[in-house]
């Protein structure tokens, strides 16, 4: 069935089909509609979900942790300050290896106040032990949210699925949805590893582990994330076979003979595609590499994908405030450092707080990357 849906509507639609056991949520722009629409589904009896309206995002994630620890398939949605308020609890969900899935409508962080898109909310949660997926389109958001449930449960890792605030969350796009039954059958019932409420198998959740064991548990958690990538790829393959839509961890656009490419995440990939097409018409050999999975960071795939180009522009929709360059750039550079062949890297920070980013801006960056020259350490695109 082909529908016209905004990103938020699509995420709520996916959640209805997923039919989680528990959703605990607190509303925040631009993700409010996801849980607002979902709460209507709960009211109308279209899902079996226990919907918990809590008093803050910190409580929302706390309730999600309690729910997931009780063996329930658990989801929520948030953005920006909401994710920031969850920050403490994100680490707890990560350490407990609870497969909670959170839909995010990416938004900048205050101050100054801004409700529009950038990736500073998710990227600030980088080290909390959550998988992170970034989506280019509404349909990709819908598909990825469904996939993320299976990926999270198979890896025992929580997952963030991000669509760019307003640009995707509030813009209507073509969305081909799947049959409800097919989605539920594909996901199957959730079989938790353990359940806090199982009286026949009493367990201790969240022990104190001091100098002698904390590091060992963290090492084990790191290994869980290290091993997640093949599981993610397996689920994507499984999804392609079941639903006919194809995704990869890293996706290339017109890269075959490209001399220069840009690498980025999120909705701006669409602008870059248009710019690549325009420049290709002029005979300029440019392309785009889209990164869909930020955690686990696919180091090996990045090395394989980027090693062959002469120059790569890394486009960050967030800034680390006086880190050497943008946060994504840093990770890409670290991945390439010991590669036998590596490109020159240029750093671009763009679109903070929803700053307009057009195909013309993208073309300007691609031209610069093709020339392989940087004027400054980091180019802040479009800043007056």
């Amino acid at each position: 069935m082909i529908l016209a849906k905004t990103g938020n509507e699509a995420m709520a639609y996916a959640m209805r089909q997923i039919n989680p056991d528990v959703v605990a949520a607190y509303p925040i722009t631009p993700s409010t509609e996801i849980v607002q629409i979902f709460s209507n589904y709960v009211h109308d009896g279209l899902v079996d979900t226990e919907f918990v309206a809590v008093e803050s995002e910190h409580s929302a994630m706390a309730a999600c942790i309690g729910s997931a620890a009780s063996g329930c398939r658990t989801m929520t949605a948030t953005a920006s300050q909401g994710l920031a308020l969850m920050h403490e609890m994100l680490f707890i969900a990560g350490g407990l290896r609870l497969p909670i899935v959170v839909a995010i409508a990416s938004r900048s962080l205050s101050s100054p106040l801004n409700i529009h898109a950038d990736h500073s909310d998710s990227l600030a949660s980088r080290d909390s032990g959550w998988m992170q997926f970034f989506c280019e389109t509404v349909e990709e958001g819908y598909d990825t949210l469904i996939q993320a449930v299976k990926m999270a449960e198979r890896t025992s890792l929580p997952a963030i699925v991000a669509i760019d605030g307003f640009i995707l969350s509030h813009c209507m796009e073509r969305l081909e949805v799947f049959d409800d039954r097919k989605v539920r059958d594909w996901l199957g019932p959730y079989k938790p590893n353990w359940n806090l409420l199982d009286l026949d198998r009493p367990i201790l959740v969240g022990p104190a582990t001091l100098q002698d064991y904390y590091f060992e548990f963290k090492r084990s958690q790191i290994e869980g994330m290290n091993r997640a990538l093949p599981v993610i790829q397996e689920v994507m393959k499984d999804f392609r076979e079941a639903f006919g839509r194809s995704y990869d961890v890293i996706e290339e656009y017109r890269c075959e003979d490209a001399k220069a490419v840009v690498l980025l995440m999120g909705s701006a990939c669409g602008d870059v595609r248009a710019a690549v097409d325009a420049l290709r018409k002029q005979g300029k050999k440019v392309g785009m590499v889209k990164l869909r999975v930020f955690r686990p960071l696919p180091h090996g795939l990045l090395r394989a994908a980027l090693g062959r180009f002469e120059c790569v522009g890394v486009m960050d929709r967030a800034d680390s405030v006086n880190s050497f360059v943008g946060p994504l750039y840093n990770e890409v550079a670290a991945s390439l450092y010991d590669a036998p062949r590596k490109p020159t890297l240029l750093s671009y920070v763009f679109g903070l707080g929803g700053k307009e980013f057009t195909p013309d801006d993208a073309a300007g960056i691609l031209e610069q990357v093709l020339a392989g020259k940087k004027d400054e350490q980091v180019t802040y695109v479009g800043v007056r």
Partner: protein
Amino acid sequence: MEAKRSWKDLPCGAIIEDLKAVLDNKTGAWRAMRPIWHADKCISCLTCWIYCPEGAIIVKDGKNQGIDYDYCKGCGICAEVCPKKVHAIDMVKEEK
């Protein structure tokens, strides 16, 4: 002494199934305030048993038997939730 385990042998998510360690750790030593339970006033409504975060209310055959001082941390929730008319638990300063 038992050999310390490698990270490879630890349970996913630090879930502890062997609860011996929990029993070995006598958290009652942390207590600054001690609940005093009055058997003559207690009506065994078991509200304290429901609320106690440490499972330190001893119950046998549906009757309150008092407080397990090995594990009671002295948080005072039991005294707080005990019905005001009953008032079967008082908190007093822990004396060493």
